[in-house]
């Protein structure tokens, strides 16, 4: 809980830094602040405390996901220092990021639909601005505009859904909604289901599940690369955690009524995203589709919805985040010499910078789900969850799409290790990138070799 104060405090501090001319101090303060926020979250473990008249509940689920978000944000800051330093508006950007982190924390810890809405809006509005933070690029502007339009459209659905649920249950409180629904809603049933469907649509937009994913590739491609990294890690984690929290707490009693819809979304997401990713030339777009496909894998655990679903989601997003941060850090370095990197720009990277190439290979292997990396255990764990609830068909589909995944992830590996390039200079990597990459490599390997670190926590 205290971490929310720290995060908000850092955001305000960052705004004040502009006035008080603390700009130089901002980066160390940010790093220390995030470490403090993560530390404070650890203290909340097992406390299960409710705050603000039961608006937020820091149960272990909330704490675990908040920690993942805080740690990912820490790594992300190390990765994107250049993005801040290059700009005259460093303080604005830092403030926006922190406000969106506050929003993300709301989204994983809400126990009231109003807070869910607030969290999503705080997160999204900051991101609309950040997506367009490269003012001079027309694509960045396009991304911001598209994201804003689609995002507000989705929020409309979400809000409508919340209103419907309120109409049926006369409450925003998750626990109350859950008990009213399990007592039976009688003739208001139709409103309830309509509300649930609208909520699914709204949240599916946020996690960019097919067919509500159309904004994602354009927005991801147009936004500055570090903002894309932020969107495909932290935003995704928060949105998915929110999705699962809502459906697990409130609607598990009417599981049979909505699971079919989510199942269709899952199948579509897995198939469409993986097949489309094969045809991408731009690495950023490929990563965008890959991020959509991972939303598909995560949806499997929502469909299966059993005791270990939450744990599998936690594991999967941690594995996914550590691999994705690597991918974007490497991409960021490639882009420093070549805007709009396509797969060919990775040619011969193994010679030009073996460390960078090895990191990218680990990231791609982890995303593709190859043991002993974390991505494999994440997939395996999801498969077990699906098996537990009897969704063998979904597992087989996921196996198939994993194979398609190999095809596009390995294109980069092949480019790095096999193809040659006429560039001979080595790629310079800043120190903090080396550190981020090392940490994420350790996490990818560590989680993979010792899954017990995360499995069974929640």
């Amino acid at each position, binding site marked *: 809980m205290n971490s929310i104060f720290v995060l908000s405090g850092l955001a305000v501090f960052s705004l004040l830094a502009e006035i008080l001319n603390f700009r130089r101090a901002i980066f160390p303060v940010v790093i220390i602040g995030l470490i403090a926020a993560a530390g404070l979250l650890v203290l909340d473990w097992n406390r299960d405390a409710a705050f603000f008249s039961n608006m937020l509940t820091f149960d272990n689920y909330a704490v675990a996901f908040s920690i993942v978000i805080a740690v990912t944000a820490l790594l992300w800051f190390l990765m994107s220092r250049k993005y801040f330093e290059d700009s005259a508006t460093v303080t604005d950007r830092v403030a926006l990021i922190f406000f969106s982190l506050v929003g993300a924390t709301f989204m994983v810890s809400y126990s009231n639909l109003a807070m869910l809405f607030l969290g999503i809006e705080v997160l999204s509005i900051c991101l609309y601005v950040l997506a367009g933070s490269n003012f001079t690029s027309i694509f960045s502007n396009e991304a911001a505009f598209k994201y804003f339009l689609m995002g507000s459209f989705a929020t409309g659905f979400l809000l409508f859904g919340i209103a419907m649920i309120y109409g049926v249950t006369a409450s925003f409180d998750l626990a109350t909604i859950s008990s009213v629904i399990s007592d039976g809603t009688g003739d208001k049933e139709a409103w309830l289901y309509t509300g649930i469907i609208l909520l699914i649509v709204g949240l599916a937009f946020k996690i960019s599940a097919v067919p509500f994913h159309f904004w994602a590739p354009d927005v991801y491609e147009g936004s500055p690369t570090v903002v894309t990294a932020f969107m495909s890690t932290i935003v995704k984690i928060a949105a998915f955690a929110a999705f699962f929290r809502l459906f697990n707490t409130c609607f598990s009693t009417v599981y049979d009524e909505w699971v079919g819809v989510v199942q269709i979304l899952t199948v579509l997401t897995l198939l469409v995203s993986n097949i489309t990713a094969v045809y991408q030339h731009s690495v950023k777009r490929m990563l965008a589709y890959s991020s959509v496909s991972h939303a598909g894998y995560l949806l499997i655990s929502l469909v299966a919805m059993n005791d270990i679903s939450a744990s599998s989601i936690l594991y999967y997003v941690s594995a996914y985040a550590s691999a994705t941060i690597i991918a974007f850090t490497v991409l960021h370095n490639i882009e420093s010499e070549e805007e709009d990197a396509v797969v060919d720009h990775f040619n011969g990277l*193994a010679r030009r910078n*073996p460390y960078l190439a090895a990191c990218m290979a680990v990231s791609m*292997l982890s995303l593709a789900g*190859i*043991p*002993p990396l974390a991505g*494999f255990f994440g997939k*395996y764990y999801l*498969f*077990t969850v699906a*098996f*537990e609830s009897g969704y*063998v068909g979904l*597992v*087989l589909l996921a*196996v198939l799409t*994993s*194979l398609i995944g*190999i*095809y596009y992830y*390995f294109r980069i*590996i*092949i480019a790095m*290790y*096999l*193809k040659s390039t006429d560039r001979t200079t080595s790629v310079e990597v800043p120190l903090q990138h080396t550190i981020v990459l090392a940490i994420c490599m350790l996490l990818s390997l560590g989680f993979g070799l*010792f*899954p*017990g670190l995360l*499995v*069974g926590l929640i």
Partner: protein
Amino acid sequence: MLTLLLIFWPLVASLVFFGIKSEEAKKWALTASIIEFAISLVMVVLFDPSQGAQFVVKYSWVESLGINFHLGIDGISLLLVLLTTFLTPLIILSSFKHQYENAGSFYGLVLVMEMALLGVFAALDGFLFYIFWEMALIPIYFICLRWGGVNRGPVTLKFFIYTLAGSLIMLVGLIYLYFQTPGSRTFDINALYAAGQSLPASAQGWVFWAMFVAFAIKMPIFPFHTWQPDTYHTAPTPGTMLLSGIMLKMGIYGVIRWLIPVVPLGVERWDSTALTLSIIGIVYASLLAIIQKDLKRLIAYSSIAHVGLIAAGIFTLDRIGLQGAMIQMVSHGIVIVGLFYAIDIIAARTSTQEISSLGGIRNNAPVFASALIVIVLGSVALPLTSGFVGEFLLINAVFQHNTYGGVFAGTTMILGAVYMLRSFQFTMLGEVSTATKTFADLDTHEKWVLYPIVAAVVLIGIFPDPLMNISEAAVDNLLTIIGK
């Protein structure tokens, strides 16, 4: 503890090598792999053939999911461990002539590969087995990708996707079994045996196919072999040796350890299908081997034929067949590494491996030709060579199981003689061609590789008993488990 040392020594050594850029790495890699061989020899000495799994280590890994780090060595494992540790130093030594860019990474990957292979042969936990199984794929993929020959990008990708497809289906099968384990869920091998055996025959049939496809792709058995000739051809020679000498044994070992005892009813139901596929593979691959113009491809196809016979012997579910398979696995591994090395020597000196442009090598290199003829005879299973013991037992078992099957399986001996002796004749004997005019005889390095192989081929042929004794009890135990 010895098992941990066996598994982790190559890994620790390889981690050091990744830092070495210079050519020095090859010497260190050789030393490390010889130490590894010594460790396995210590194991052989301490091993008690009459007991089951020995040198067992078991640590909890992911407790809440019933996954353990559980390793142990029984007779079947030990033979393959011995094969792996014997061949790896030879494979490393055989590559001394080549100047590989980033030698440190190359030899590091070879040793990681060795570690994963040993892990596969020692794992007694389904999940751990799968991890090692997949881990073996990564180093060999990178070895082929970075140091392979023409067209290696698409070929290696096909190889990777093909084998991964099989593995993932096997994973689904393993998870299914995991959910059937009695009591609390676990991947322990005995629990998986109990789970599989308690299933009705139809369910066992499904699990059979899920696992069988993975193993069949790895071996490979017809019709899952299409990745193999291209990959063998494209891979750098040490990679080809690893693939053919050791890695394909993973598939055979998988059938013995993770298929037959897990779903005996499924095997009973489908073994004639598997047997038929194996025998089709023998004849088909032998015929294709005859028409190959490229030596490396010829050996690749001959490997499909030989492995087909091993698989056929196993699916007779007969004691003789299984023992024959064990001895033939060792023999095939040694012989094929020798053959690929011979091709490597020829290709390095004449820069061709086309049969038609070679000939008369024996005139200039009598020692090489003599060494090679022993290996070739081992391959065609002449009595008193290692190939004979295995093939004789295998064909005998297939013949007893099904006369027609035995007849067709037996063609491998005839067809094998045709393509092996013919290619020997066209390359070693006859007129000296322009390519072979200045063919130098073996130097010291090459002798150090070929002589141990020749010695092994002859010694196993004359005294197969010590090896047979190692696996005998384990094979009997296996047959007891499936109630035969």
